[in-house]
């Protein structure tokens, strides 16, 4: 598969929804396949909370992309047909400007001084990227979870630049429960003695324990009860592969391992920033209601929810479709019986692949 990573610099900066601005910023992107001559085959993939620009294939470090089951040659989003683009979102920690990068005006690491970013800011920065890449209109903008919120926002904010949107395992706004879960994660980071109010990198430390706990909690919310039970049950971890002596059950070992691994690559300030963006998103914030928010939309919408997802349950997707239908927007709403809870959107299944493929290709 033809793929390319690139760091793109935006000297013109960006004004953020919060009123702050970044005088300049960078976005790390990865692209797959080729833009056709008529520039009508571009697909933008928006990543979820802890994802990044590396969607498909193996990167030089040998890591497989987070949506490799769906994106690639002859897959549901076929990189032989489409020019696929994904960028690490602003505020992230995989190469784009974020709390762990250097503030060009001070020459120091941003740390806690990196401004609050929102889903709208991401979409605005992705629009700047769209212009930079010379893409007049996306054939398809798609994402799951927080990525789905971006796809929805794209269709609201830039209706003339998007033909179809895929909104998977997402909602038009985070629920009270979503915010509550995220706050527990953030609090565990803030209470880590190494957090130092967000300025830890310059001290050469990391709030690793806090970040690990946050991720462990997160992981529980991404899986369904049934899936956890099937995968781990009440099985005991065999002693050779225990991460430490405290662990009894396989599920404990799994969470410990996943949590630990997450801290190797993820920045705690980015965690706070990304979850804040997720909590803050409400498509109807500047409107009377969701119906009015969607009144500008002209793209076709495909909304997919997963039965076992209790973090962003299917009903949240249905609300979007209903509001779309009230606005006479061509829109479909489908629930699939993904067993993996909220994470279901990441994994290929025959029905899911067919629906995506047929929707983009029709």
């Amino acid at each position, binding site marked *: 598969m033809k793929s390319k990573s690139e760091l793109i610099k935006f000297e013109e900066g960006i004004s953020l929804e919060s009123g702050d601005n970044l005088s300049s910023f960078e976005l790390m992107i990865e692209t797959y396949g080729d833009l056709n001559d008529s520039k009508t085959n571009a697909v933008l993939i928006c990543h979820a909370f802890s994802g990044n620009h590396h969607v498909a294939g193996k990167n030089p470090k040998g890591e497989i992309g987070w949506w490799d089951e769906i994106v690639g040659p002859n897959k549901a989003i076929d990189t032989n047909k489409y020019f696929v683009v994904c960028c690490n979102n602003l505020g992230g920690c995989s190469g784009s400007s974020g709390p762990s990068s250097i503030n060009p005006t001070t020459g120091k690491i941003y740390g806690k001084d990196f401004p609050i970013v929102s889903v709208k800011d991401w979409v605005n920065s992705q629009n700047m990227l769209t212009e930079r890449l010379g893409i007049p209109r996306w054939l398809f903008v798609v994402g799951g979870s927080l990525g789905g919120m971006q796809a929805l926002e794209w269709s609201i904010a830039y209706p003339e630049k998007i033909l179809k949107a895929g909104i998977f395992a997402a909602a038009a706004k985070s629920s009270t429960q979503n915010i509550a879960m995220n706050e527990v994660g953030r609090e565990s980071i803030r209470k880590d003695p190494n957090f130092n109010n967000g300025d830890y990198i310059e001290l050469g430390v990391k709030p690793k324990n806090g970040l690990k706990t946050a991720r462990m909690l997160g992981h529980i919310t991404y899986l369904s009860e049934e899936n956890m039970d099937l995968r781990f049950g009440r099985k005991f971890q065999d002693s050779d592969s225990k991460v430490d002596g405290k662990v009894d059950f396989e599920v404990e070992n799994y969470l410990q391992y996943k949590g630990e691994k997450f801290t190797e690559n993820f920045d705690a300030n980015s965690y706070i920033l990304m979850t804040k963006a997720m909590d803050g998103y409400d498509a109807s914030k500047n409107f009377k209601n969701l119906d009015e928010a969607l009144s500008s939309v002209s793209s*076709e919408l*495909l909304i997919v929810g997963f039965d076992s997802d209790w973090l962003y349950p299917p009903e949240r997707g*249905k609300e979007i*479709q*209903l509001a779309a*239908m*009230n606005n*006479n927007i*061509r*829109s*479909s*709403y*489908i*629930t*699939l019986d993904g067993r993996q809870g909220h994470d279901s959107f990441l994994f290929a299944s025959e*029905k899911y692949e*067919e*629906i995506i493929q*047929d*929707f983009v290709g*029709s």
Partner: protein
Amino acid sequence: MAKELSSYIENWVPENSKVIDFGCGDGSLLKKLINSKNILGYGVEINDKKINECIKKKVPVIKQDIDMGINEFASSNFDFSIMARSIQCLKNPNLALNRMLKLSKRCVVTLPNLGYWKCRFDLLKGRMPVTPDLPLSWFETENIHLCTIKDFEKLCSDEGIKIQDKVFLSGSGKKSLISSLIPNLFATEGVYLLEKE
């Protein structure tokens, strides 16, 4: 869906209207209406395979059990609703009818006729009817509320539903003189255009 049946429905659906089709199957009727009447159509379907067929045809589709939620669409103003060969599968056909006529001023309902002579003949022989139109045995059929043409028209009159137009199809799926003259005995299917009085 038989070509003739969809043509009768097509005649009743106004151009540029907003249409919802409950139990839309593979979306072929909506596709036909999109092409010929430039409608904005939405299908409601529960079967995943059929949903995929709709997506392939670019027909907007919503996965939903009709029994559970006709009312969910109440906030969207439809001009027309359709329920072809599905009403007999619902738990509460009478509620469904009323709900459809709340969604849209007019609706089309088609249903198989249990009064058709072949069905009566099967019953005379002491067996549940199995005909080309009702091909499944009693234990595998989804048709839990079969009725005759007379039954259906009585329900409409009891519920204050006005039958604006109707067509009766015979075994060949076409209109015939005999199925129009004595529909309760000779029609396999009733096709109704309904309006709330």
